């Protein structure tokens, strides 16, 4: 079973994974990375501490094989002026 490493980047902070985790396939690793990006994003993004959370997945040779990014965009919109009442 191949081993994958999941590093996490949010803003200036980088959490490397030295231990790795055995995953049945790259698809399985992608799923775990996506869940993790969503979980970390759920905590951090609404607080405004970071606008983007990226999980970088490396294979057993420590080569990067995929990245997953969860991001939050907020747009404030000026409303159109209301038409005068008839």
């Amino acid at each position: 079973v191949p081993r994958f490493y999941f590093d996490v980047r949010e803003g200036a902070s980088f959490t490397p994974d030295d231990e790795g985790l055995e995953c049945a396939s790259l698809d399985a690793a992608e799923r775990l990375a996506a869940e993790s990006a969503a979980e970390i994003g759920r905590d951090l993004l609404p607080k405004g501490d970071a606008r983007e959370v990226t999980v970088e997945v490396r294979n057993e040779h420590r080569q990067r094989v995929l990245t997953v990014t969860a991001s939050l965009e907020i747009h404030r919109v000026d409303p159109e002026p209301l038409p005068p009442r008839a």
Partner: protein
Amino acid sequence: MVLSASKADHRRNLLLAALEPEDLAHLEPHLDIVILPKGTILYEPHDPIRYTYFPHDAVVCLINIMEEGQFVEVASFGREGLFGLISAIVSREAFGRYKVQVPGTASRIAIDRIQQAMRTRPKLRRLVLGYSEALLAQTFQTVSCNAIHTVEARCCNWLLSTRDRIDEDVLPLTHADLAEMLGVQRSTVSTTLRTFQMQGLITQQRGGITIADRAGLEEIACECYGKIRQTFTRLLPMPSS
């Protein structure tokens, strides 16, 4: 492994310590002390429950396993409590997997014996009922916490409650352990703990987490940690520490 034991050993569990001397004397011939190594599984879902356990320094988690194989901790038991009785009082079947998360020892008694003793000993029954109410309150609080609060806060709760249970600042917990208990990915736990470390709240060693700033962690924990603690203090005799 079963060890020979004295009353003093059994009293390391706070419920056994709170028993009237004659009630403890009644149970004592039937109580064994067992060593619980880390990772030991005491019951799998639907296993028949044979023994009720009263942990000393061990912490045991009840883990619910979903159909697709995901799992999450739904209750945990340390020296403040017991397991293998209340949630099996009629069926005598394990609800989920009981796994030793923090190694240590526990006193153990056959479920027949304790159920029999509860019928004839009102003070023992009253104590078990008090614990049942506290455990149910803990469960209600945890359901709300899991639905609403952040992984960061829940992780803090876990570090603090484990510290309370074992009375040590060095917690023998890995990132994988915490991921299992919180129902999240391990890299989510690693990221959260790294933030705590950068804030000077914890230090990390291989296979362990050391609490460096308890008050700081309490600020990040949600209300649930304090509420559960208060419930236990109100319903059960607790040490003054």
